[in-house]
């Protein structure tokens, strides 16, 4: 079991979510974060006082998947989040020691398995 953490642009999310859901991987969590990186800062100005801001709004996408789905999920994100401009973000992959489904108490890879759930598409 692996967890994918991807720091991406907001604009990319809808397409990624759709594609992954179609692949049977609708389960994920996103959060609003601010990122600093190679992308240039911007300047705000208020009554003449200026500040340069290095943090920019990004989305953090977290999804735990079964080992066999990691590469396809990463490929999807890579394809759809890519613009070629600085600020495209990074994808990190972690080992998951254990996964539990709260609704059922199930554990292990089954919890993260691909599923063709009509509701979730």
């Amino acid at each position, binding site marked *: 079991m692996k967890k994918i953490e991807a720091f991406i642009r907001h604009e990319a999310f809808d397409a990624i979510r759709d594609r992954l859901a179609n692949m049977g991987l609708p389960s994920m969590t996103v959060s609003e974060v601010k990122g600093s990186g190679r992308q240039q800062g911007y*300047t705000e*100005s208020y009554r003449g006082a*200026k500040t*340069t801001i290095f943090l*920019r709004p990004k989305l953090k996408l977290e999804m735990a998947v079964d080992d066999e789905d990691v590469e396809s999920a990463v490929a999807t994100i890579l394809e759809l989040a890519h613009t070629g401009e600085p600020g495209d973000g990074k994808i990190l992959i972690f080992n998951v020691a254990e996964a539990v489904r709260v609704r059922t108490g199930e554990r292990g890879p089954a919890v993260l398995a691909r599923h063709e759930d009509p509701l979730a598409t």
Partner: protein
Amino acid sequence: MRSRPLAAAACGLGTLLALPVAAAAQDAPAATTDSLAAQVASLASAIDTVWVVVAACFVLFMQAGFALLETGLSRSKNAGAVMAKILINLAVAITMFWISGFALAFGSGNDFIGTSGWFFNATGFPAAAGTAFASASASVSSLFIFQMAFCAISLAIVFGSMLDRTKFAAYIAFGVVFAGVIYPMVAHWTWGGGWLFKDGFLDYAGSSIVHLQGALGALAGAIILGPRLGKFRKNGEPVPIPGHSIPLAIAGVLILWFGWMGFNGGSSLVAHGVDFADVLLTTNFAAAAGVMGATLGSLLMFRTIDVSQMGNGAIGGLVAITASCAFVDYWAAFVVGLVAGLLIPVVVVFVERRGIDDPLGALAAHGVAGVWGTLAIGLFGTATRMDPVIVDVVGLPSRAGLFMGGGFSQLWVQFYGVAATMAFTGTLCAVTFLAIKHTIGLRVSEDHEASGLDISEHGMFGYPESFIEVPGAQPTPGPAWGGDADPSHAMTTSTPATAP
């Protein structure tokens, strides 16, 4: 016409109205005292009408005050539903006051109810046709607007204690009954020349007629609805649900304060031959004292200076002085407001201890303050100020308040006037809410309440970007935020990037 376009403009805009006064002043062969007297009477009516209309507009504007106050003190997932409620209630109040309210309140009839003038059929108002009324005072239309705005205020108060959990349809159903029947009947008792009026009951601008009635509806509604999910812990301890925006709530209070100048000030219904502005002094002194009283009370009771209580203090002071503003001296007005302010936190806690969930504090600010203000006339009213009504109009012997050496007689009238209002309005409101509860339903489902009324009743949050994805809501920083000051758009220079 060519050479006088401005006059034409006036005509085009203004239905070109006969202008008897002006005409007389210019080309009448000679002004006679009779023609002048007629013109003077017409001007007197005009000035009264202007004041009443302006005051009515101020009162109408108080709807914006209630809207902000209530939305500010509700949770943000229900913020849009509050605004929908204000709009539909205002619409219902206006419509019902036109259909039946004005007739029941001000039509001729008996001591309990007016029975003529449905749909504001002016011919139903003998008084309106009477020359005295028509020529000496504000136009009947202006009086209608003023009273209509009052009725809408009373209805707006009702739902302050019912925020965050009431069904949209219930607003309409209750509004029809309240604005169309309940409120006007009680208004008739005093302002329509009914039995309380004849007994010398005084309520200058409606501490009990407008505010207490609204609060009684609020009380009945809050009890029948029950508290919001999560408002009380299992042990009955209240949980703070502090609304979502104190700035909006207090902006609402300030709008109400402003509108109250029309509320109390306009209740003279005349602008000439009387110092109608004097009630604005008592009104402001009581409001100021109400703020101070609630600040002090909050500090003593809660050991913190609760901003929402300060706002309620202002409202409480204003509500209390509403009945008495024309009948008490300045110092007494200050006392009336101060006591109202001090009562606010006490009543708020008392209400919450009883397990009643009143998000706005309407029971304290409009209910208890309304009772106190109405009774205060019986304590602080001066003969000088009361005689013009009690003696000259009603025809009773002169009276004064208890503390002004006048004994208990006025206090007693004030007391049973309030008691009758509470019994009558409280009962009818409770019956109406129960009827709604058992037919179309009064409270939304738990799911809807948890989801928030905005999404469940209106399909969309009041603050959409807080809860759902809005396309483009998140600013996506492109070069516009960075260093590419595009020299081509002179007026819209973006800020140059300073990154090295």
